[in-house]
């Protein structure tokens, strides 16, 4: 059940011009309320912004006296700019835990596929999953592949493949090409867990379906309430129904999503 929680900013680290690593003291959101990676917090970004901003949870930890939660975000507009200006000791009004998470209950081997700012929500799955896993991480350019993030996958996954759109680091090209190569060699993945921009999710879902590997995707949509009441965050399904990113998602079965809507 979600609650309203006042969090205190524990630390702010700037990763590059627009990307921030923010750690919050988050009451008992993790230990009592079960907050975990892949879910999101709906954050009030000052009085100037009416709507809260959804930000994914990257890393969670039980701690005393308060749990710790790391968010990794990019400045895109006024709300995230305000968030980036927070200082340690400042407080944040958040709603959480919100949304579902990737389903990793099936034993087996998992393939994690992240793109850009969609990589952080996979960190906990890369680090803590009880099953063997491989990671494919895509970035626009090499300088966006922050070692403090990629190393967490490299240290815990069987293999970690880096791709960049401009070829400045790792494989030149999009993640779906790397995913295709992997699936061609070995189809035994239990599931693909993907998070990133919609075009990336769509192409990964297509490859997954070609090789009949189950695929879960974490989708973004503009939100109002963040808890399932206002119905603004609609994600169309193949069967013609609407699901909602904040309540039914953000993680959906790629087979259910209407990618052409």
């Amino acid at each position: 059940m979600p609650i309203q929680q006042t969090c205190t900013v524990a630390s702010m680290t700037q990763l590059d011009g627009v990307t921030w690593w923010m750690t919050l003291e988050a009451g008992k959101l993790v230990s009592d309320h079960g907050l975990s990676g892949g879910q999101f917090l709906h954050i009030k970004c000052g009085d100037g912004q009416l709507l809260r901003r959804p930000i994914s949870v990257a890393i969670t930890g039980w701690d005393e006296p308060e749990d710790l939660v790391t968010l990794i975000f990019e400045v895109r507009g006024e709300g995230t700019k305000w968030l980036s200006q927070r200082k340690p000791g400042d407080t944040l009004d958040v709603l959480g835990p919100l949304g579902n998470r990737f389903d990793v209950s099936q034993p087996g081997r998992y393939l994690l596929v992240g793109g850009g700012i969609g990589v952080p929500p996979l960190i906990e799955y890369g680090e803590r999953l009880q099953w063997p896993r491989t990671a494919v991480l895509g970035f626009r350019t090499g300088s966006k592949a922050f070692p403090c993030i990629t190393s967490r996958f490299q240290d815990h996954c069987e293999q970690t493949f880096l791709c960049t759109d401009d070829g400045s680091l790792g494989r030149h090209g999009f993640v779906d090409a790397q995913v295709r190569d992997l699936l061609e060699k070995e189809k035994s993945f239990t599931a693909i867990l993907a998070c990133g921009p919609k075009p990336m999710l769509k192409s990964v879902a297509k490859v997954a379906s070609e090789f009949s590997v189950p695929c879960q995707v974490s989708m973004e949509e503009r939100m109002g309430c963040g808890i399932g009441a206002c119905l603004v965050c609609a994600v169309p399904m193949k069967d013609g129904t609407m699901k909602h990113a904040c309540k039914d998602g953000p993680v959906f079965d790629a087979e259910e999503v209407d990618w052409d809507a």
Partner: protein
Amino acid sequence: MHEERSFEPETIVGHAGNGCSSEQLFPAPESPDTSHVDLSVDLAGVPLKNPVVVASGTFGFGREYGQFYDLSELGAICCKGLTLHPRQGNPAPRIAETPMGILNSVGLQNPGVDGFIAHELPLLQRSDVKVIANISGDTPEEYGVMCERLSAAGVDMIEVNISCPNVKAGGMAYGTRPELAAEVTKMAKSHATVPVMVKLSPNVTDITEIARAVADAGADALSLINTLRGMRIDVSSRRPILKMNVGGLSGPAVLPIAVRMVWEVACAVKLPILGMGGVSTGEDAAQLMLAGASAVAVGTALFADPYAPLKVRDGLAAIAVQQDLSAVNMLTGGIRPW
């Protein structure tokens, strides 16, 4: 601490020479004792334990916000707009932020009136809160059918939405044309056994014209305002943010329009009014009540703060105390126009 508190200058002057301690000089204005204030109001014969209702479409059917507080804290719940058959609504994006407001184009996504009666109403009826069903139809006959089924199912009141600007068929036209608004009202009244409240659109030249037509057709109450048609364009892509291009504006930005329209309508007709549009504080709610509303609804403010309706309620009670009123309903129509 003391310097952050606000106070009436007269209070200070009046007590300064009395040798009061600073605690007495600076009473905390935040939490006056409001326990003696009667918060109950009457809306067209439906008794509400307090004047704060949640606005249709912003509160679903109560399940989600019910995780934050007991629904019985509210005066009433206006449910998400229902149609005769289930609807999937409009494509996303369905929301855009604007200065102190939001635009939405949800488009009446809902499980249909029968789905509501089977799966949502029983849960709501388990809470000690009045249930107001909000309905939209494509034809006057559809309004009639829905009123019949909802009355039989035991809702406390029906809010007839003739103003939702999002659905191309029907919706808009009823709310902007007096004769159509009257026709729908008559149809609803002749099929409902519970009070019928007609929700007016602000997207008209003269809202009192529609209000009079609806009152003459037998409505038991009026609610206003629904959202105002608006638009926001992303300059770099030159595309509207909303997939439907235009949507309905709500939130603090519309409050002054809501206050003006409630006042105009209250002057024009003698029906009880549920006022809404941009309410996020007790002060906002008091404005609508002074302008003539018997109760107020809180919508968009929920998205910033799930507890907004309860804060509005407590704020109203505090205003009643400040103004020495024994009951909040004494605010209704209390405006002193120039």
